[in-house]
């Protein structure tokens, strides 16, 4: 017998929280009711449907308390490193120092969504030359100006090279506003030529060894910079242990993704799955707590699968989602339209893969950095996605464009065309704005058309 575990509104979570507390739920130090985040300004929560488990509550609390935890870290004498753009590699170097934590100010792109535009960050960015032509990551500039969100980092490190133009310009604006940035070169990852020495970065793709050497050189330069900020030397042993810890987290995440995406009935909603993946890039400023939260979610999912409990009907359409949506509520919308998440590529699959523990740590991290799909060709990215779609047996694809993002215009075309030609699956190319509310009707129509198309193709 299969049963549905209902998703809850924020209001419904109030009673659920009291019930769980009364029945002995134990929370971590950052625990508490979801309502407090709404009261503190995260108004978007009022529009969402949440998973009803204590494990999901812990996930939300971990994410929504990050700024407070960073302040606490600083209060205890620790230093904060703002890592930017590479999504997954430089934080590992920072965590190899006892007194450093890392976070991505890039994540400020979701602040206007969470605050439902009450934060004024886009307006601040516009006053500083960054208007709506830029992707929502421009909110980061506003957050650095008004200093009302994350604590201002003690040091900033930003990857530049084959990164998107929006980000390069937005980060550059921080520099002209007086913030020092340590720039490092992350080149376009090219395909090896002829008999050029190369290393495999996944089962099908390889990169030239020379590029690995050069990025390794850059990572050593970053380490030297971090040593100055930290005031301590990096221990290679500590770096290796940090990589082991990271791999432990990534393995947990991989198991969770595999169970959720492959299970006949969806055991965890799209919104929570997306946020879970986001933990991979910098562990929400706390690798230990990330591990605990992921382990809790994994237990919940395993129990649900074992007892035949899911969050969506069994016939939900299995959708592969490409790029993170600027409005998190788009994940709920997908489910309301009859879809479920069965595969994702949120621009950082390189942060989900285990790091090679058999070679020297800097080389391993260089290989990880060069696996970033955003620095390679769109064709390669599309081929990697196609392989995942095949493996996960996803029935449809949503190509989610980010408003204003320089890479989307060409890349989306290349990826969507390749998938349409090769996969014989419907591909929906949509743009998700920071708040979908005014466009919800048209987005609903398009997503419903997608799921109906899939259902009509299913054998009777």
């Amino acid at each position: 017998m299969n049963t549905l575990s209902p998703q809850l509104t924020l209001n419904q979570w109030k009673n659920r929280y009291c019930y769980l507390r009364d029945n002995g739920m134990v929370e971590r130090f950052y625990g508490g009711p979801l309502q407090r985040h709404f009261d503190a300004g995260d108004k978007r929560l009022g529009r969402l449907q949440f998973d009803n488990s204590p494990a999901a509550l812990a996930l939300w609390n971990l994410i929504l308390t990050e700024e407070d935890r960073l302040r606490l870290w600083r209060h205890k004498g620790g230093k904060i490193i703002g890592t930017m753009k590479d999504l997954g590699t430089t934080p590992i170097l920072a965590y190899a120092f006892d007194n450093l934590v890392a976070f991505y100010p890039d994540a400020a792109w979701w602040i206007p969504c969470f605050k439902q535009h009450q934060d004024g960050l886009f307006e601040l960015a516009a006053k500083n030359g960054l208007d709506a032509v830029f992707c929502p990551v421009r909110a980061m500039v506003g957050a650095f100006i008004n200093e009302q969100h994350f604590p201002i980092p003690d040091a900033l490190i930003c990857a530049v090279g084959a990164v998107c133009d929006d980000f390069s310009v937005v980060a550059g604006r921080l520099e002209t506003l007086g913030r020092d940035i340590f720039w490092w070169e992350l080149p376009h990852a090219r395909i090896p030529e002829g008999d050029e020495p190369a290393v495999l970065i996944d089962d099908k793709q390889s990169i030239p060894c020379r590029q690995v050497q050069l990025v390794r050189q850059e990572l050593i330069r970053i380490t030297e910079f971090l040593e100055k900020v930290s005031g301590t030397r990096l221990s290679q042993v500590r770096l290796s242990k940090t990589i082991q810890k990271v791999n432990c987290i990534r393995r947990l995440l991989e198991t969770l993704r595999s169970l959720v995406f492959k299970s006949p009935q969806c055991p965890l909603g799209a919104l929570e799955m997306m946020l879970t993946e986001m933990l991979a890039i910098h562990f929400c400023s706390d690798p230990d707590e990330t591990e605990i939260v992921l382990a809790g979610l994994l237990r919940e999912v395993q129990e649900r699968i074992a007892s035949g409990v899911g969050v969506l009907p069994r016939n939900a359409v299995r959708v592969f989602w490409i790029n993170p949506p600027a409005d998190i509520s788009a994940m709920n919308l997908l489910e309301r339209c009859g879809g479920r998440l069965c595969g994702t590529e949120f621009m950082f699959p390189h942060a989900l893969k285990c790091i090679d523990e058999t070679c020297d740590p800097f080389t391993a991290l260089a290989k990880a950095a060069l696996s970033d799909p955003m620095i390679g060709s769109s064709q390669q990215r599309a081929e990697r996605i196609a392989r995942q779609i095949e493996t996960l047996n996803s029935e449809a694809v949503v190509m989610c464009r980010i408003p204003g993002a320089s890479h989307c215009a060409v890349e989306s075309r290349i990826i969507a065309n390749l998938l349409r030609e090769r996969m014989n699956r419907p591909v929906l190319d949509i743009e998700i704005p920071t708040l979908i509310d005014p466009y919800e009707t048209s987005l609903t129509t398009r997503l419903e058309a997608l799921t109906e198309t899939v259902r009509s193709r299913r054998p009777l």
Partner: protein
Amino acid sequence: MAKVYYTCPYVPIELIIASGHEPLRPQCAAKSLAAEAETEGLCVWAAGFVQTLMQQTDIDAAIFTTACDQMRRTCELYAEHSKSPVFLLNVPKTGSPAAQAILSDEYRRFAGFLANLPGAKFACKAMFLKQDIPNRGCSFSSEKGLALIGGPLFEDDFKMLSRLVAGFRLNICFDGTESVWPQYRLPLSQTQTTADLFELLADNYLSMPAVWKRPVPPFWNWLIEQIQLSRACGVIIIQHPFCDYWRPAIYDIKCRINTPVVMIETGEGGSLSAAALLRLEAFLEQCMP
């Protein structure tokens, strides 16, 4: 001798010439953009370059670079349909030792590519010959002049703009648009002691100003200095839709100089629209002697 088409100022024309080929930097015209071209979200300059390439019948190779995201990805679109070889040159954005090594590696790789084109014959001496660097005839004169900066300007737009400016008894006294950046590069000198030719070339090209370089301040410092040296009485910024690098230029310029500034946005088809030209005329009226 192969005809090698390029547009980015980081493509080393010395190397193309020394390899026995002819470097061709097409004078893209806004008019070349086909009406049916899908340019939604796409930089019109990148689209214009691709369309110009597609209209050539004598093309032996096309060179794109990673200088901007749009051009990097447009290369893929072009390569899908191109019958002639395409080369994507990796242009670093910093001045770090690794960046320098990346660029010299890339120039070495580029030399290998050029060697495989028909008629290739490498002559090292040709690397050091004075190159004819595109200069669109801006002048430092006693007349009141304007500085022109921004994304690469379509040639037909440049001609129209020059005529318009002249009509107000003004001239272009400083052209800092991307199209003419190579003229601000230091000449390649055989007396330099670097043993490796490609390292020498990389050093030289990295000395060229570029809006995408990081850290940011050196480029703007250089640009402001050039504008001030030219004694321009006004600054025109050319902005192509969907070009992120030049979009905030008006803010950067206005923050730092008192000279009047106007930003003129090209239309989605590449040309300066009637509205943009009207705006420019109003600006020129204020600047005219």
